[in-house]
């Protein structure tokens, strides 16, 4: 098991602000397009640990719905409501609350995620050679001709009570 999981089709993340979510085991993750660069993080707010993005795909800021913390391309909370009166976090304190990064790889028009941000991104490329047939990937996902996603294993949470 390489640890890479299929997260989304590249088309889902083609524009700035587009994001996709999934689970690597019991860990919720997200990948978002930040001005053309795909960045991935644990999908857990650093404040009080809420799952932030709940739909499989979407477009918009990386914003926690609980208290409206908004995170930037480095996973650092850039907007914290009531910071002036309630948190008093300076830049260094905000950076200390950055979301843990994950690994992101693009291969065959598909987006893959790995909990290790330094994981070998060449691995998923070996999975995606299109031979015109339906294939089951090592993570259990199933893709068809043209990199169509027929089943995405990361859509379901696993391993937690």
């Amino acid at each position, binding site marked *: 098991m390489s640890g890479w999981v299929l997260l989304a089709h590249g088309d889902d993340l083609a524009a700035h602000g587009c994001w996709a979510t999934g689970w690597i085991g019991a860990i919720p993750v997200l990948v978002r397009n930040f001005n053309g660069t795909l960045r991935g993080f644990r999908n857990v707010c650093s404040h*009080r640990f809420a799952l932030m993005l709940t739909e499989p795909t979407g477009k918009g800021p990386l914003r926690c719905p609980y208290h409206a913390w908004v995170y930037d391309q480095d996973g650092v909370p850039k907007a914290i409501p009531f910071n002036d009166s309630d948190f008093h976090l300076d830049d260094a304190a905000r950076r200390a609350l950055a979301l843990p990064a994950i690994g992101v790889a693009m291969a065959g028009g598909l987006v893959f995620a790995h909990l290790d941000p330094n994981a070998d991104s060449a691995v998923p490329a070996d999975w995606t050679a299109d031979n015109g047939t339906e294939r089951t990937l090592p993570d259990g996902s199933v893709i068809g001709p043209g990199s169509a996603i027929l089943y995405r294993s990361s859509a379901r949470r696993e391993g937690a009570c």
Partner: protein
Amino acid sequence: MLNYDNPPPRRRLLASRWFHDPSAFATEQTALSTRLPWRFAGLAHEGGTGDAACGGFLFRRQTHDVPPLTDWLGPLADRLSLLSTALDSPVASDSTEFAANWKILVENTLDDFHGSTVHPQTIHPAVDADWRRHLHTDRFGPHSRSQWKLSDPTAAWWDKLVTRGHLRRFATQDLYDHCFIFPDLYVASFHGTMVIVHRVVPLAVDRTRLEWRTFLPAASDDAKAASFRRGLVSMLAASARQVIDEDRPLCEQVQQARIAATGPGILGWREQRIGYVHAALSALLPTDGTAP
């Protein structure tokens, strides 16, 4: 009243296993049953039994050599006694289950500033727009209380309800008042008349039932006012349910993600009531119960 002009201590939150691990849940529940001196046992008017009462609120003695109940409750004993004057007027009861650990529900109800994001059409407009200035919070050991000034339109609306429905007020206060008794009882009151008693019932490490009873005391038996109150009760019960239904998905999102958190989390100044609960629990739990 602004009582957040000094930084509170940064409190540690319990580690994630206390929210996900079934064995940790068993350990915690045993500690709450054997090491906590007093615990809420029900309401007298519902035929509940307890070892001591504070007004209509019954409590079970759980350990030997406990302090008197009034000492355990501190200044909130007077508050519960006052709220008890409304308990002769039950008008609605409801419950719902959350796919979340019970402490997440407690954290949520003690969180004084998710109104604008989670309750933008319900709680948020009901309180004064300058709520940070008009929010007052007090702590009494593991218990705590927050008071919000109602917005002027909401206070005026309640004044009309009091008049038309002949509602009885136990206190003349234009407040949304939230009183928490560790670990599982909280009582909300509005405008010194409507009282909602909530009880958090742990079912499993990741499942909790929230029960609530609504009380709306009347000052007369006037038939027209009684008819008005019946319609009002339906609306108020639906509103209370809506607020809970707004909270539930967020609580469940915390349950889903908390196991994956790698950082310590952080509490803002207006979230210190949550810190008190974590500190009280840490004191009850085995010494490895504190985070990290």
